[in-house]
Each structure stands twice: as C-alpha cells, then as structure tokens.
C-alpha cells in the first residue's frame, strides 16, 4: 500500500476542547465536515498519505482530547512526534490564551526539542471573531511556529496547513528517517532518525 512512501511521520493535534481539532483532521483525511462530531475521548488516530514536493509521506495523526482531565493521559502520546498542530478557536479568546499551557505541555512531554510546530486559528468562517489574525501571527513568531488560519467547515487552509507542516518536517534534517524494511508497520517500529537536534533553520520562518 505504501511502496513509494518516503517516510512515516507522527503528527499530533492538540489544543483546548471544542476548538475543532477532530474537525480539522476529519476535513483533512476525509474531506468532510460533521457539525455533530462527538467530543474525543483520550486519543484518536487517523492515517493519510500525502505527497509534498514529489515526496510521499505517510502521516499517522494523533488527535487528542482537549479536556483538562484527559491531559494526564494524552501527553504520553506526544512521544516521538515530529510535528504538532496547535489549534485555537478564533471566536474564543480563552482558547488562544491557553496556548501557553499547551506549549509548556509540549516542552515537558515531548521527547525531542526540534519538533515542528504549527499554529492553526480555526473557525474563521464564524462571524464573532475574538482573536485577530495578527495576534496569532505574533504568537507564532514568538514561538518559532508555522501559522495559518483555517476553517474545517469551509475547508479553508486545512490542506495547506498539513502540507506546510510536512514540508517543514521533511526539510528538517535528522527529524525523520527514510522508510526501510520496516515499511507498513507504523508505530511499533518507528525509529526516530539519528542526528536530530539541529533546529533546521525553521526558527525564523515568519
């Protein structure tokens, strides 16, 4: 199924509850929008193969529950991730303010410090916006992240967000490893590439 897949990447989606993490993922993987998507329990998991610059990458995307109580459980899954999508809801300032907590969480539980981070401001289709685009941009710049605003409902920016993230990961030396004989087996044998550590120059993106 993945004869020509260059690598398998582990991507995380985190953020406050109800900001639309699962919806973003569903839009990306199935290109659908379900307004009645149940609140995630623990972690969920989806797979999608995408092609970036002619390189096929298989994404194992872990969607997490945003509720405080689940936070004792979900950070265990941060381990070994190469990319993370940090989501907030542009119509709810509190979800934006809590971003700092999530970054802390990442720093504490992430096993690597060169993980590529993307900030996504979701629900831009809604009218009652509370967080300005510039604020998101500023936050992303401050924390060396990629930034995009998106709407899982209208499809805006979703595909682009994932592609950018993957492209950045591929460009970061040592962050990923070419799929060898372990192809097809995803999590049991995923080995983090040797020689990471370099920030890969993406720090000054914005």
């Amino acid at each position, binding site marked *: 199924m993945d004869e020509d897949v260059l690598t398998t990447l582990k991507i995380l989606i985190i953020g*406050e*509850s*109800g900001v639309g993490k699962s919806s973003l993922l569903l839009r990306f*993987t199935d290109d659908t929008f379900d*307004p*009645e*998507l*149940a*609140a*995630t*329990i*623990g*972690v*969920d*998991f*989806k*797979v999608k193969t995408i092609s970036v610059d002619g390189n096929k990458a298989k994404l*194992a995307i*872990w969607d997490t529950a945003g*509720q*405080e*109580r*689940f936070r*004792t*459980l979900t950070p*265990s*899954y941060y*381990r070994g991730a190469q990319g993370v999508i940090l989501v907030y809801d542009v119509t*709810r300032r509190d979800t934006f303010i809590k971003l700092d907590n999530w970054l802390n969480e990442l720093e504490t*539980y992430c*096993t*690597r410090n060169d993980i590529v981070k993307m900030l996504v401001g979701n629900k831009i289709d809604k009218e009652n916006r509370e967080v300005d685009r510039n604020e998101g941009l500023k936050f992303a710049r401050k924390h060396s992240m990629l930034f995009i605003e998106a709407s899982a409902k209208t499809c805006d920016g979703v595909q682009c967000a994932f592609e950018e993230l993957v492209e950045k990961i591929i460009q970061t030396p*040592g962050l990923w490893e070419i799929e060898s004989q372990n192809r097809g087996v*995803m*999590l*049991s044998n995923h*080995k*983090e*590439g*040797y*020689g*990471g*550590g370099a920030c890969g120059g993406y720090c000054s993106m914005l």
Partner: protein
Amino acid sequence: ALPESEVFEITDFTTASEWERFISKVEEVLNDWKLIGIASGKPLGKGVYTTDAWEEKSDEISFADFKFSVTHHYLVQESSDKDGKEELIEDALPVSMQDLLCMNNDFPPRAHCLVRWYGLREFVVIAPAANNDAVLSESKCNLLLSSISVALGNTVRTDFEMVHLRKVPNQYTHLSGLLDIFKSKTGCPLTPLPPVSISIRLTYVLQDWQQYFWPQQPPDIDALVGGEVGGVEFGKLPFGACEDPISELHLATTWPHLTEGIIVDNDVYSDLDPIQAPQWSVRVRKADNPQCLLGDFITEFFKLCRRKESTEEILGRSTFEDDGKEAADITHALSKLTEPAPVPIHKLSVTNMVHSAKKKIRKHRGVDESPLNNEVLNTILLYLFPDAADKSSDGSEARPGTSTGNNPPPENEDSNLYTQFKSAPSDSLSYKLALCLCMVNFYHGGVKGVAHLWQEFVLEMRYRWENNYLVPGLANGAPDLRCCLLHQKLQMLNCCIERKKARDEGKKSISSDRSPGDTGKAIGHSGGDSQNDTDKEKGEVGRSWESWSDSEEEFFECLSDTEELKGNGQESGKKSGSKETPNLKPEGRLHQHGNLTLLHPGEPLYVPVTQEPGPMTEDLLEEQSEVLAKLGTSAEGAHLRARMQSACLLSDMESFKAANPGCCLEDFVRWYSPRDYVEEEVVDEKGNVVLKGELSARMKIPSNMWVEAWETAKPIPARRQRRLFDDTREAEKVLHYLAVQKPADLARHLLPCVIHAAVLKVKEEETLEDIASVKKIIKQIIILSSKILRFPNPEDKKLEEIIAQIMSVEATIARARSLKAKFGIEKHDQEEERDDLERFVNCLLEQPEVSVVGAGRGPAGSIIHKLFMNAQRVATTTPLDEELKRSGSSDERRLNSGAVADFPPAAGREVILRTTVPRPASYSKPLPQRMYSVLTKEDFRLAGAFSSDTTFF
C-alpha cells in the same frame, strides 16, 4: 625525508628533447594552475606561515610509465594578489625571491619542510606518485632537477640546492664554517662583500623533569576495602592521567637578526649563550594517548555492552535458581503476591535483607567465589540506598531517606543535561547505579562484579516492593519519559509501591476491627489473570468499559464494606440514568468546585477524589499506541478506541456521581469539559436577564459515548472502584524485566548516565583550569551526545566517538595540570605574574609554539632555565659544593667555561644566512641569496637558494 626530486616552480628550458613530452605536461599543469608568469605579492607579515592556512592541490603526470604527482602548496592569502598582477613594477622580484630574504617567518613551528628550508610561500613539488618509487640514482635526479624560478622574463633564476648528510663535517657545526661555505657558494665578485645577515636558532630539549614528577595520585583501592572510602568514592568518577602527559619541553633560543662579525661562533668558542638569546620560544611534546583514568573507566564500561553472557551464566546457573523460577513464572508470583492475606511487614533493613539473600546465594556458591566482597557490596548498597542506614528499629516506619531525589537541586545549566542525553538526573538512583557499576566493573571484578551487584540490586527492588518501602532517589510521579528506560522502570516500580502501600495501610486500619478472611473473600480474583490474557489475545475487541483498567476484580482501594458496596451497586444500577437517588450519602469528595452548584438540588458541586490513570513507561506506551493504532481508522475502529480509553472517563463519572448525589450530566460536563456547557443570557418572562445553560450540540448527540458512559456510571467513590492500574501486575512485570537484564543490557541502559557523569566531571575539572579550547570541545561533546543518545540503539561507532572526545579533553586537562605543576604556578605568590604564567601555560597547550616574554630573563624564562639546570645537575652529578656555587651565580657564568653548563648541548642548530649580491658577474642584477642549515644529532642539511641573473649567461 622527501625524495630529492622536488623541482620548484618549474618552467622548463633546459631539458633535453627526450623529456619534452614530460616537460610540456608539467607546463600544462602549471598553466592550469595559473602559476606561469610573474607572481608578486606583498611581503608577508610576522608569523603568517603559522597563523594562516596552507592549501594544496595535486595532479598526476607520467613520464613514460613512471608516475609523478605534482602538488602545488600555497599559503592562502586574504588579499586579492592575483588581481594585483597587472600593476607590476618592472623591477620587482618574484615573490619567491622576496620570500628568500623575508625574515618574518623564520623557523616556523609547523610547516612543510620546504617552507622551513627556503621560506617560500608557494611552491610546487613533483614527486614520484608511489611512495616506493623514490628517485634514487643521482643521474635520474639530475635529469629532474632542472629547476629555475618562476619565469621573470628569463632573466633571473634561483637554483635550489640541497646537501643532506648523516655525518657532519666538523667545519659546518659552527657559524664561521657555514659563513665560509655560503660565501664560496655565492661566489660574489665584489669586494668588500655585502653584509650577510644571520638568523640563528638553537633548540634545547628537556626530558628529565626531576622532582616535578607527575602529581597524579593513583586511586586508593585498598581504602575502600578497609571500610573507609578512599581516593575514588562510589558515585564519583576518577580523573587524570596515570603517566606524565607531557614528555618533552623544547626550548628554542633565537637570534633573529645578527650581522656578520657581531658574534663569534667557531669550533673553540661561542658567544651563543642561550640565556642571552633575545628570543625564546617553547613548545611541548605531548605523550601520545596518555593513559587516563576517566577514559579507561568509560572505555571499560562501554566494553560491557558487547558481552553476551546473562547474569546467571556469569554467576553460575544455580545462583538464581530460587529467584529465577519465581521471576520466570510471573503468573505464579502474581497469584502468590496478590494473596489477600495482610502482607507481613518485616522488621528488616536493607542490609539484613541483603545478608539473608547472600546467605541464600552462598548456599549455591562458595563464599570465596563472590565477585564482590561484603564490605564493598555494603558500601555500595548504603550509597545507593541511604535510607537503609537510618533504619529505625521499627521497619514499618516511613523512612526519612525515601524522599531523596524528589526535589533534585537545580544544577544550573547542567540541569537539563539528562533530558538531552536521555540519562537520568544526577542525584537519581539510576545515575548512582551507573557510577557504581562503572566502578565495580573497573576495580571489583569486571563483568562478574557487575552481575553480582545487579543481582543484589534486583533483590533489593523486590524486597522494597514486598515490604512497601519506596525506592529512594527517584522523582515522584509517573515515569519521566525523558529519562532512560531503566530509570522509567524504577519509577514505575515506585508508583506501584506507593499505591500498594496506600492500599495496605488502608487495609491494615480496617483489618484491625475485621477478621482477615472476610477481606480476602471480598477481593476474590478468581481467574482474573487467565481471563485477562485471553481477552488480550482477542485484541481487546469487544471489551466493555473496563478495557484499559485491569480486569481483576480488585479495587482501587481496599473494600471498606462489602455489603455496602453490593447494596449500593445494585441500587444505583437500577436507578442510574438521568435521575439519581438524591438521598444517597455523598462520598469521596475532594473539594468544592468554585461556587458552582448542582443544577437541580442546588447543592454545591464537589470535585470528587478520582483515580489517577496508570503511569506508563515508554515501552508500555509504545505497545499501547500500537494496539490503539491497529484498530484502524474506520468508524468502528475509532469507536472501539474511544471505548477502550473511556475507563478513565467512566471512573471519573462514577466518582463524580458518588460525590454529588442527584447530579446530572450537565453538572459533570461543567466540571469536566466546561466548554461543552453553553450558557446564554436570556430574558425571562419577568423581564430579568438570566443565564440559561445547556449542553453543547456535540454532547447532545443521541447515544454519544459521553451520554452512554454517564448512563452506565454508578455512584461509586474512587476507592471502591475497580483499579485502573494494577500495581501488582505492573510491579511484577518491572521486577521480571530487571531480573532478565544481562550486564550488556545494563551497560547499554546506563551508558547515557555514565557519559552524562563523565561530561559533568570534565566540566568540573575544566573550571579549575579554565582552558578555552576545552570549554569549546565540551560544548561540542554535549551537542554530539544529545544527538546520539536520545535515539534508541545508537551505533557503537558514534558512541566511541563521544568517548574518544571525552578522553581527549581529559588528556588536555591533565597536560595543563602537568605544565602548571612544572612551572610551579600554584607556588607563585605574585598574582600578576601567576596570571601571566597561567596564560603562558594555556598557550603552550593550544599553540604549536609559544614565545617567552622577556626570553631568559622573564618569569617563565627563569623557570625554564631552572628546569634545565636541575636536569643538568643530575645528569652530571657534580659535587655538592660546586653545585651551590653555580646556582648562586649562574648569570655570570659563561657557557663554555668548563664547568657544567646550565643547558645540555643544543639538540638542534638552525642557521639562516642571507645576502643580496649580483651573480654570476659583478654587473649582474643583485639578487637574493639564502642558505639554511640545520644540524641535529644525526642529521645535517644545507638548503641553499642561490639566484643568478641569466641575461648574459
């Protein structure tokens, strides 16, 4: 030595026709390299031959079937000399000729020998390509040695000549003889002869350091055996070289610019007293790979990684028989340990326990065969488990020591080193264990000692588990995934002990007013294990809410009242749903949740006491995510996945219900997922603005998992719920894991800790010496290590690289210490002078050659002088009185006064003679002439560069 076939800067006119093809090839290459034509350049600055970079490029040329390599060596100059070519002054001499006279780069400390001999900044070497094809016969040499300088309109050329002798003709051992030969070679027709400028360097070698013997103390191994911890304590790493890492000191005394006649140096007398030389410079010869303690330590530990034997194979199969069986059969052990009978709390200390364990081992093994003797073992165990030392007579008391490591002291910039290296905090048990194993491996029986210590360690772990003693030196809480797996395993064990302890303590308080048998039946774990196993095989499919909790019918906390539970469960089971029986007694309240009140009864909303989800080590986590991922991405898969993870949610709901009788899902959501309770301001019929709240749309989806779980949840406080985390099983798994680790596995687990410790050690030692270059290398080591160690199964080659770098740093620091001792820096009381000396010593380590400020009269110079004098004194064993006399008036003495000289005979004499004279005729253009001579014990070389004007010849 180089084969004598070098031809410099060739443009060939003199070769016979049979060589023409070869010649033209040479020309081709030189043309390619743009070396043909007039090259000019600025005079070179002082010392640039050492400070600037040299580069080279090569080509291969064959003469018939004989291959030559042509190599262009050149000093990389920053300025664009090539562009300056056009603005040449007509009369300018080629740079090569200018270089002959330039005195800025005489006696370079490190340079190609041709640079040393001729002072050139650029040259081409043509040599046989294969090393064994040296051009040996003189005729062949001559054919090749048709050399001239880079073309200067064909008007001048320089012949580079060389004399190389094993035996030195007497007349060449001194300046006057050399001057004679120089003058005869230049054959200057003028009278009086233009002055000859002279540069002389005499080099003296000091090998005998005398009382400045190497100060490294060998570690005192016996001290340990005596019960007292000596030179190298457990938990510390040794450091330093075992032999003097500085083997020789070379003192070069230089007269950079003398004119003929100023100085007398002939076969009977010499003015060249090294003390008087205007320039002194020193270089040190470092011992190659000196044996260093830290390096040996790590290397030996690393070698363990390649051992194949298991602990049992090393200690003898019988050793582990009792424990081995137990460890191998977890199920058996498990059922034995989960036996509900109250665990007897032994009044045993660690040491008691160790002794009893040892007795057991000794039954199988002769006493003498124990790789570690009792004292060493006890010292180590007390170091690892300091809580055992302050044992109270009552073993059940909480030990004060157990909290060590809970709050690791801040290590400033090193504090996060363990996360970079994936090792363990430097005050943790794992880290200490790594150091002990390292020490045991080195001093106490190698791999056998390691196996023995490990066996004892595992026994101690089991003892602590069985007797509810927390393992010291581990941070509280779930395993820290940033640490090495072994550390995580130990933390996991501690989590298990903690929970078991809490449970047992609860049990104890109840069993005091209850017969033990009663409690036993209540827990009943009939077939729990086998059931669990089969379920696992089914891939967890079809499991209900408890999937991730353990399936045993064991409860989070011990049962306080079986009857009550049953009654409660049935009752609430029937009535569960949207409505709860409000008259239930609230249970398991943690604290009030702000000012929130329940929606219906209006009572305060309480946050319940909840079960913490099970801690996980990274390997378990990997397993679990694999299971979750295997469920696939279908809707069913996702549903199942959510179900499997909802045990925690359900448990929380049950706790919540128990703490808040009469609550509804909305109440729960307001605590658990507040954003899913949407509040709106509405105006009621009276015209007042009131808040109206409802569940979010997604929570209202019919039969979504939250609703489903809520309906299933019974009001049961956490302490009576099923355990989400089976500490018994997890502890046994950890203990089994520990028991089957081979010494090699251990070494792999703990190598990051050892490297971490070694880096801290070199850092600590470096701060005492403050060596800039070492600081830089240490930084590089940290970067390299964090790249390599963070990933599973690093390659041996890369690990070796890290170790080699640590060793080189250790050697450098040892060299610095050796030099400091030799120069008596510690003894120096004048601070300013001491600082200067310190700088001087540091320079010696980093630069190939360091000039001595003030030459023989400066502070460093006088120390060097003394060093030589002492060595000479011993070498000649002069009577004491003479010695005293001499040391008092050393300055006044002449070198050749017959008494013992302060310095040994010069090991090397280098002389450069230079002049500018017209050759071959008096009307020819005056051109640079230069002759370099070097005389060592068994080698004499003259390198002449004599230029002549070819205009009329």
